[in-house]
């Protein structure tokens, strides 16, 4: 995904993280970064990911558990909480409303570009 999408990605990152963690028992930062990149969110960097996870932890949406690393320092695992699942459901609904609103403002499909051109003219 191009860098132009980075602000959107950053805004939606907590929701994406909760969605990813909801499908797993627990995960850690590097694995989450890989999962998000595999899903097409290439713009996310460690500098953005870990603060977002720290914030989710402080908000009670995820909990932290330290486990053994692979020959290196201990690994910090994240697990979604019940509060996090409730938030995920709320945010999913809000995200759906938001994308529908944006789509309605932009018009539908290929007509949007034409509509914009007409307006400019």
């Amino acid at each position, binding site marked *: 995904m191009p860098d132009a999408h980075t602000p959107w990605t950053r805004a939606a990152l907590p929701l994406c993280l909760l969605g990813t963690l909801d499908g797993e028992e627990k995960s*850690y930062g590097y694995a989450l970064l890989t999962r998000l990149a595999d899903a097409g969110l290439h713009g996310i*960097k460690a*500098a953005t990911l870990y603060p977002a996870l*720290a914030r989710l932890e*402080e*908000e009670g949406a995820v909990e932290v558990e330290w486990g053994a690393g692979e020959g*290196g*320092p201990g690994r910090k695992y994240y697990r979604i909480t019940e509060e996090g699942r409730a938030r995920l459901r709320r945010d999913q609904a809000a995200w759906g409303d938001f994308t529908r609103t944006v789509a309605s403002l932009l018009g539908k499909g290929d007509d949007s570009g034409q509509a914009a051109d007409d307006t400019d003219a």
Partner: protein
Amino acid sequence: MGKPPTTRTPDLVWTREEDQDWADTVRVRLALDHGVAFGLAEEVLAEAHQLVHEAGRPAPEVLGTPEAYASAVAAERVSEKDRARADAHGLTPGEHVSAAFGMLGFIGFVLCALCWIEDGLWVTGSWASVAGYATVVAAVSLAALAFVARGAGRMRGMWGFAAGAVCAVAGGSAVAAAAPGERLFAVPVPVLMAGCAAWTVGAFVFPDATLDRWFTPRPQAGDAQWLTRLEGLLRGRHAMPAAEARGHVREARQHLARAGGERAEDAFGDVEVYAMRLAEGPRKRRRLARNKMYRAVAMAVLFAVIAVDEALEAGHFSGWVAMYVVASACWCWTALGEWREAREPTGTQPPR
């Protein structure tokens, strides 16, 4: 609805008293908590004034609490780089040094004025008194620099300055005790006051940017230094408990181990910005309140000790003793307020 005033100067007229209070609080929070420049603050308030006027409702109702509004403005209008350079008080290390030394000079000026009123125009000095005053100035200066170094994330520097302050007290006391106490010179108090005034002016005139450079390490040569600096910033500048800060550092180190060869600066970016991002969660307010509580307790104890010392020396409950007792009580009250703030659940107020 009439046209609202469009001025962007401090004489912006708010029709309701609560709106005026709201605007004043936003202005103070922007300046003190986020270090926002005066011009930008006034621009922000002019925009808020317009919104409130058009909505026809009180500012807190339209725009939320002033603290939250100031935080949102700082997040949106001040660059991360600029916000990351300042601590919880919105000051950079250089500004802290200027403020601390300026205050030291001002206190010296006031004490000289009191001395003039109580003891007359001339004061006498001896080697012992010179050593004593030099010790006080050195110890206070080094202690202030220790706090500044802590806020700058230079934990080793902090311990260095703190050790220097202790050594200054020990060495200076010994010299003052051993030095002869006979009269060495007499000087008019206004001369000392002029010296204190010059010190104060010098502290504020000295460029903050130069001081900032002294407290900022050179660009990190390696990951180890980057990670050490991260821990220092989280603990010192953002008042994060040591265990929590080390947890973030361990996680970063673990990420770098997995990333295979990626430099910390490349993966995580500027260390000051990264530390700020990690510390901006809902627990920030409680951490800062706890930090302020420790300081308030320290000040309360300091004034209590001075009060007892003064009372023992004077042999009775003098006006000075009363003043120290009141100061100690005020700091106790402050500590109590911060303790309550630190115990409030996260999320009840926006992070400041």
